[in-house]
């Protein structure tokens, strides 16, 4: 039976839910508090070897030679590999043409070939009978390098004279390539209306530039992978990933193994936030397993490796110009965004460009985005990738416009904020959205009008936009004899989506959440499913779950019609009750009755349109110590439109967690490099993610403007609230001590300097 294409518009008027909107406890979480939950790092197989990776001490160097002999001779060492052990991809890459480049980058990032491109770039890997022997063996691998001047700074990298990182790289402008070698990988542009004209109509124009540092997702479970390359050619992988199919396909391409021979098993994941989509260790573990005689090989990164060698998010340089008339109407806005992609092209600058002005109705817009390679680790996604940097710049400029126009910042946003029917810069039209609701709700928060209690305290607000994601999802469901349902999906559960999926199926079938047992299937047992990214799982996989629910109901109605000899239309289902002629049955009653001799299971795959974008508006109070530059977050309220909160307690947790990452980004987190391009702060002692006493008790406020593109109104909740914090905090700092911060992080040293400079200028 064919699932209806999940695209038709949903009417959420006076929808009553039985399960959705409650916050049941997921029994599976018991394993997390007893320590019995199995994560990638907990994988242990009989005869398992331990792998370790040799990493470059240089930010940019040519590899002249690698000698592994001494390491291979060590007792206990079972295999040593270098890039020479990878299959030759030349043919493959040529056949892919332009798009072959990305495969080359992928492979070169996993093990450097002729050049190392960043401090920590993998060069060789070892498998041995113990981790200690493996790490000892690394020191016996002899690599000779020829140093090349590195470039870690984004603006230096864009200069003509800068060392070129990829001699074959040309700037791509939608298919048109520049002539000369460059570090600028691509240029994206949005243009609408006439900015010059718009600025001429403005009564206030503010133009500012901003710098933001590289930051890392900072998950606690390090990257890890265990692989068993069996003699029969089957490759099994257990790893810490957001997407099992994505791992399968990447490994398949890199090692040139047909997907049918690769099976990837999902496990609990100890944090990801976008950082566990790309593979780093899986191909190494697989090759080591093969070379060591088909023994399972486990590799776990140290946190030093996680910080130096796995994708953080982009550092950026941003120029913003915005104008508004005296009524507070934005007349024009331009943005110039340069994002550091790291060693290989592919920063999230395009996403940033598409999202930066999305919350506002602006007729005259010009946005230019540049993707720039530098000698830093290859950047990866991080929770609403690239948007926090861009929105920081935009919302700080807006705060200055409000100050100059003497308009309340929330009123200003109400005046300019987008509504249903408005169109985004990129041409997407807004359906039902909740931006105005977040603004109204924020205004009505007691926090917004509460008095500040001390000197050097200030309040700031900022809004933000996140597009949310859709993508492909599959689900299968089978009815047990007791009328409960087993649900399997391909979505890795990072923070409780098994529950939000159980609840959506339970709602569809009219049963309780704990009547549905949801698990994540491995790649052999479920249809293709994209990774758990873009806040997409409750939306897209939720769609798939809803569809299998409809299929189960349809199948039961047909069976009942046959049994009772009634036309199908006389077997009705609503509010969880089957009405058959004049008899009534609950789902459980009918299911247990109709599935004993003839089991019932269904499955479906979807790729739904109708993704519902999210908006948030945050309020924060800070206290600044003007003598030290230290910022204390006194109070934080985060208002976010989630469409529909399936499990409100989980949604609150998502908002609180995202805000805390935003606070870290705003105040202390940054990659610090020396002149040679070596990262200095490679532990969680000096890469300062917020600790418990660093943050207040964050108040999440859930706004529900149902997404018409989803049967239960889901938009997605995971990412949105990491976007506003840096701007909101910057605006609060200005309110507290009168300095406008234009650099992230706003660390004590930087804020102190800004306060000094202001002091000098003000007299």
């Amino acid at each position, binding site marked *: 039976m064919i699932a209806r294409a999940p695209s038709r518009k949903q009417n959420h008027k006076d929808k009553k839910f039985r399960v959705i909107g409650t916050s049941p406890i997921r029994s599976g979480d018991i394993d997390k508090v007893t320590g019995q939950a199995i994560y990638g790092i907990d994988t242990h197989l009989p005869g398992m070897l331990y792998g370790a990776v040799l990493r470059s001490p240089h930010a940019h160097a040519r590899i002249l030679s690698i000698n592994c002999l001494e390491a291979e001779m060590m007792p206990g060492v079972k295999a040593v590999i270098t890039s020479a052990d990878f299959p030759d991809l030349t043919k493959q890459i040529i056949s892919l043409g332009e798009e072959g480049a990305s495969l080359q980058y992928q492979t070169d990032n996993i093990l450097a070939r002729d050049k190392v491109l960043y401090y920590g770039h993998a060069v060789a890997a070892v498998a041995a009978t113990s981790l*200690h022997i493996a*790490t*000892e063996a690394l020191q016996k691998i002899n690599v000779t390098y020829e140093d090349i001047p590195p470039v870690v700074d984004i603006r230096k990298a864009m200069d003509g004279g800068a060392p070129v990182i990829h001699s074959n790289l040309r700037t791509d402008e939608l298919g048109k390539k520049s002539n000369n070698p460059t570090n600028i990988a691509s240029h994206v542009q949005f243009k609408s209306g006439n900015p010059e004209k718009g600025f001429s109509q403005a009564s206030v124009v503010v133009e500012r530039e901003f710098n933001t540092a590289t930051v890392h997702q900072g998950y606690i479970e390090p990257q890890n992978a265990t692989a068993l390359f069996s003699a029969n050619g089957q490759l099994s992988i257990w790893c810490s990933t957001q997407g099992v199919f994505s791992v399968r396909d990447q490994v398949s391409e890199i090692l040139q193994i047909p997907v049918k021979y690769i099976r990837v098993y999902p496990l609990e994941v100890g944090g990801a936030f976008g950082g566990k989509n790309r593979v780093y260790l899986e191909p190494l573990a697989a090759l080591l397993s093969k070379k060591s005689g088909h023994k399972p090989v486990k590799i776990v990164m140290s946190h*030093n490796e996680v910080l130096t060698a796995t994708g953080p998010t982009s550092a950026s340089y941003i120029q913003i110009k915005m104008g508004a008339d005296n009524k507070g109407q934005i007349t024009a806005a331009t943005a110039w965004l340069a994002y550091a992609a790291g060693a290989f092209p592919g920063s999230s600058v395009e996403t940033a460009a598409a999202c930066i002005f999305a919350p506002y109705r602006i007729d005259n817009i010009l946005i230019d985005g540049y993707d720039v390679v530098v000698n830093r680790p290859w950047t990866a996604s991080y929770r609403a990738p690239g948007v926090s940097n861009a929105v920081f710049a935009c919302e700080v400029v807006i705060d200055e416009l409000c100050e100059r126009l003497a308009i309340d910042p929330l009123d200003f946003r109400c005046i300019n904020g987008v509504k249903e029917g408005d169109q985004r810069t990129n041409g997407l039209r807004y359906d039902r959205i909740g931006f105005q609701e977040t603004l109204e709700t924020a205004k009505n928060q007691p926090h917004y009008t509460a008095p500040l209690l001390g000197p050097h305290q200030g309040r700031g607000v900022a809004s933000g936009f996140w597009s949310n994601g859709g993508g492909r999802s599959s689900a299968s469901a089978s009815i047990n004899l007791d009328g409960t349902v087993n649900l399997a999906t391909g979505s890795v559960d990072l923070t409780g989506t098994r529950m939000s999926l159980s609840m959506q199926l339970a709602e569809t079938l009219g049963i309780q959440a704990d009547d549905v047992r949801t698990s994540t299937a491995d790649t052999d047992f479920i249809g293709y499913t994209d990774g758990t990214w873009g806040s997409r799982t409750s939306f897209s996989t939720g769609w798939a779950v809803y569809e299998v629910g409809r299929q189960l109901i349809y199948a039961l109605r047909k069976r009942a019609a046959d049994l009772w000899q009634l036309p199908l239309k006389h077997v009705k289902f609503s509010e969880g009750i089957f009405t058959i002629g004049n008899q009534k049955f609950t789902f459980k009653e009918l299911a247990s009755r109709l599935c004993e001799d003839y089991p019932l299971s269904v499955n479906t795959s979807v790729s739904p349109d109708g993704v519902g974008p999210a908006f948030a508006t945050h309020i924060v109070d800070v206290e600044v110590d003007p*003598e*030290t*530059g*230290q910022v204390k977050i006194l109070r934080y309220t985060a208002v976010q439109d989630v469409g529909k909160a399936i499990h409100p307690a989980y949604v609150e947790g998502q908002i609180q967690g995202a805000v805390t990452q935003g606070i870290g980004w705003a*105040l*202390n987190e940054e990659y*610090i490099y020396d002149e040679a391009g070596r990262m*200095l*702060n490679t532990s969680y*002692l*000096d890469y*300062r993610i*917020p*600790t418990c*006493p*660093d943050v207040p008790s964050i108040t999440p406020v859930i706004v529900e403007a149902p997404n018409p593109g989803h049967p239960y109104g889901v938009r997605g909740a995971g990412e949105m609230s990491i976007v506003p914090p840096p701007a909101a905090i910057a605006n609060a700092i200005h309110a507290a001590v009168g300095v406008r911060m234009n650099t992230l992080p706003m*660390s*004590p*040293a930087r804020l*102190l*300097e800004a306060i000094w400079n202001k002091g000098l200028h003000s007299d």
Partner: protein
Amino acid sequence: MLAFDYVKAHNVKQAVSYLSQRGESARILNGGTDLIVQLQEGSQRASLLVDIKAIPELNQLSYDPHQGLLVGAAVSCWDICQFPAIKKYYPGLLDAVSLIGGVQIQGRASLGGNLCNASPAADSIPALIIYQATCLIAGPDGSREISVEDFCIAPGQTALRLGELLVSVRLPPPKIGGTGACYLRFTPRSEMDIAVVGVGVAVVLSSDRTTFDWARIALGAVAPTPLLVPAAGEFLRGQKTSAAAIKQAAQIAKESTRPINDMRGTIAQRKHLTAILVRRALEKAIGRAQQNDKEE
């Protein structure tokens, strides 16, 4: 981690002989909160770890009004913070020791370890210096005693000679009446961080509590080793406890610093923070001195 041997020393003599035999490649294992990390990173190497936690002398913790305070080198930060005499008579030391790491570190890290790791930013060392603490050292040629300010000679380097072992730290008895002390540090995070600047001050006020009879100021993270600033103390002697005097002392301390730019702070920031923290620490120490009167 590279392989090493492990021995547990049961008395000072045994420890000293292990250290003498193995020479440079033998390292003392106490709480391990620095050493184990350094061995893992490969920034330190060792062929032998000598565990000294079981040596009785290194676990002494006693206070005597005439002898003062004796803290064995192996006594944990946690135990120091719980010791009533330290709360009462050495609040500056309590300030510092309670800042060393989170709870997990407190139970393992020791005063001796913090000293012997000889980090310029070590929190406990300025606090020990202001209390005129001395190090009792045992070695192949018998034992000796040196003042804490002479113990650290360079970043990560101490005055300990081959085969020598820090046994305990002795703090003279507090001056009676009008005494106050305080250790403050600045860190970007409120916990789990390394001092950008650390400041310890101890003062003795005149009987009417309006004048400095004596003062001692020591700084952390602003020079290759923890820094005693005699000039600041001498200046304060006889000065009124006025804002002006405090400001001047802070200025003297600031001028004595030789900080560097590194990932944790800049020269300008460290010099500036030195003056700020000296002022705040003096104000707090004076407050404590006057507080003690109320209690006595």
